[in-house]
C-alpha cells in the first residue's frame, strides 16, 4: 500500500487546484521562517506606520486567508461543499462502543443511504 497525497476521485482540474494551494501554503510557511523572513525583517520601510517586519507577517496572513477563501469559492461553484454534506448523514453511535473494533460496514451503508433517519433529525 502506497502513501496517497490526493484523493483518487479528483479530476485534473482538482489536482491542479489542490496541488497549487498546497504549494502556496508551503510557500507562505517558508516565507515566515529562516532564510526568507530575514530578508524582510527590518524596521523600515514602514507600511502605514507599522514596522516592515510586522507588516510582512500580516501581509502573508492576508495571503493565506485569500488563498483559502478562493479555494472555498471554487469548491462552492463546483458544488463540492454540498456534495460532501450529502455524504455525511448523522448516524447512531452507541453500537460502536468499542472504536478499536471492526466497523459494522452494513450499518454504515444503511445510514448513508437514508440520511438523518437514524436520529430523527434532518441532516446538515
Amino acid at each position, binding site marked *: *500500500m*502506497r502513501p496517497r497525497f490526493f484523493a483518487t476521485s479528483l479530476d485534473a482540474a482538482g489536482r491542479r487546484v489542490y496541488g497549487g494551494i498546497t504549494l502556496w501554503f508551503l510557500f507562505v510557511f517558508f516565507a515566515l521562517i529562516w532564510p526568507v523572513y530575514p530578508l524582510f525583517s527590518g524596521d523600515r520601510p514602514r507600511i502605514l506606520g507599522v*514596522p516592515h517586519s510586522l507588516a510582512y507577517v500580516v501581509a502573508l496572513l492576508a495571503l493565506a486567508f485569500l488563498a483559502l477563501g478562493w479555494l472555498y469559492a471554487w469548491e462552492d461553484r463546483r458544488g463540492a461543499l454540498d456534495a460532501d454534506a450529502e455524504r455525511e*448523514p448523522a448516524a447512531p*453511535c452507541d453500537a460502536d462502543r468499542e472504536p478499536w473494533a*471492526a*466497523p459494522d460496514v452494513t450499518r454504515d451503508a444503511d445510514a448513508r443511504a437514508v440520511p438523518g433517519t437514524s436520529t430523527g433529525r434532518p441532516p446538515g
Partner: protein
Amino acid sequence: MADWVIVLSVTLGYLLVSLLVGLLSGRGVSASTEGYVAGDRSLGFLVMYFIMGASIFSAFAFLGGPGWVYSRGAAAFYILAYGAVGLAPWYFFGPRVAELGRRFGYVTQAELYAHRFRSRGLSGLLAVISLAAFLPYLTLQMEGAGYVFSVVTEGRIPAWAGAGIAYAVVLIYVFQSGVMGVGWTNAFQGIFMMALAWGLGLYLPYKLYGGIGPMFDAISEAAPRLLRAPGLAADGTPWSWGGFSSSVAISVLGFSLWPHYFMKIYTARDVRTLKKTVVFYPTFLIFLVPILFIGFSGVVAFPGVEPADAILPTVITSIGLPAVWVGLFCAGALAASMSTGDALLHASASVAVRDFYRTLVRPDLSDHGERRLIRLLVIVIGALAYYFAMVSNISLVALLLLSYGFIAQLAPLTLATFFWPRATPAGALAGLLAGGAVTVIWNVSPGLQWQDIHPGIWGVAANLLALVAVSLLTRPMDEAHVREFVVG
C-alpha cells in the same frame, strides 16, 4: 462611589452575563454524551468561529502577548506567523474527521486514532498526553484571572478569590451546558475581547504618542532591536533565527492538533460550516495586532515594568482611564482567560472519561453514566487546576513549553492515519513514544541544543523514523479496515 467598586461592579456584570449565556445555551441539545461533548454535531458557523478564535486567544495572549512584545519585541510576531498557516490543515483533513466522527460516533480525538489503529493502548497514551498538556494550560488561565482581579481592585480582591469567582462561573456553565455553554459564551466573550483589544490597541498609541507611526518612531530611537525580527530572547540578548523558525514550525505542526480544538471538528453542523470557519479564522487572528500595539505602547512610556506580563494592567491603571473602562478591561482579560479555560476544562473531563476510563477500565459504561462521570470530572479537574494555580509551586511554564513539543508529536500520527495505509499500531505507538522521549531528553539536556532548535522538532524527526521503521517491520493492517480512513 470608589473607583474599585465601579471596576468590580462592571466585572461582576460581565460574569453574570457570561453565566446566563452559558446556562441558557445548553437547553437545545440531547441529554447524551454526544450532546454534552459534541453538541449533537449541530454548531453553526458563528459559534464555531468564536469557539476556535476565543479558545485560542487565552489569558496568555491577552496578558502574555503584550508582555512578550514589551520585553522581547518582534519575537512575539511568531504567534501571528504560525497562526497564518496553523489551522489550514483542518480545511483538508477536517471534513474527513467529521465524516468519520458521524459514522462511528467519535467525540474525542483519540477515538479516531484508536479506531484507525485498533489500539486501546494508543487511546490511553493519548489521554495521558492530552491531560498532561491541558492541566498546566488551564492552571495558567486561572492564574491570569486571579492576577487581573487583584491588580484592578488594588489588592482588595486577592488573586485566590478572583480566580475562584471567575472559575466558579465557568464550572457552573460547563457542568450544566457542556460544549454548548463553551460555544455560546465564547461567542459573547470573543466579541467582547475583540472590541476591547481594538479599542485599547488604537487608543493607547494615540494617547501616549500621538499615533501608531510616532509610537514606532519613539521605539526605533530608544530600542531599535525590538522592531527587527526575530527580536530578543528571554534574557534580553538577540533571539536566534533557529529559535524563531523552529518555534513557528513546531507551533504550525501542533496548532490544529491540540485535542480541545480537534474535538470541535465533531461539533460542526456540516462541511460547509467547518471549511468556512477555517477560511475566516485569520480574521480573528488579526485581533492579535492591536494586542501587539498595546505591548509596544508601554516600551517608551513605562520602562522597567517587572514582570513584563504586568505591562497591560500597569498601563491601564496609570493613564487616568475612567473606572468603567478599567472594569471593561478587567472583564476583557477575564473573557480571554475563561474562553480558553472552559474549553480546556470540558475537553479534559471528556478525554479522561472517554479515552482513558471507558476504554481501559469500564468498556460497559452506559451513556448516562458516562455523561454523569464527565460532569463530575469537570468539577474535580477544575479543583485540581485551582490548587495548582493558587497553592502549588511547581513550574507550570516549563511544563507548558514541554506540552507544545508533545502535541506536535500527533502530526506524524495524523498524516499516517489519513495518508499512509501501511502504518501499523506498533508503528504508531513507537512513533509517539520515541517522539515524546526525544522531546523530553532534548528539553532537559542543554548540551544537546543546536542553533536553539525547539526540542519538539527533534522529537518529530525521531517520531517519523520510528513510525516508518516499525510499521515496515510489522504486519500490515487489514486493508478493508484501513481504507475506511485513508483519503482517496
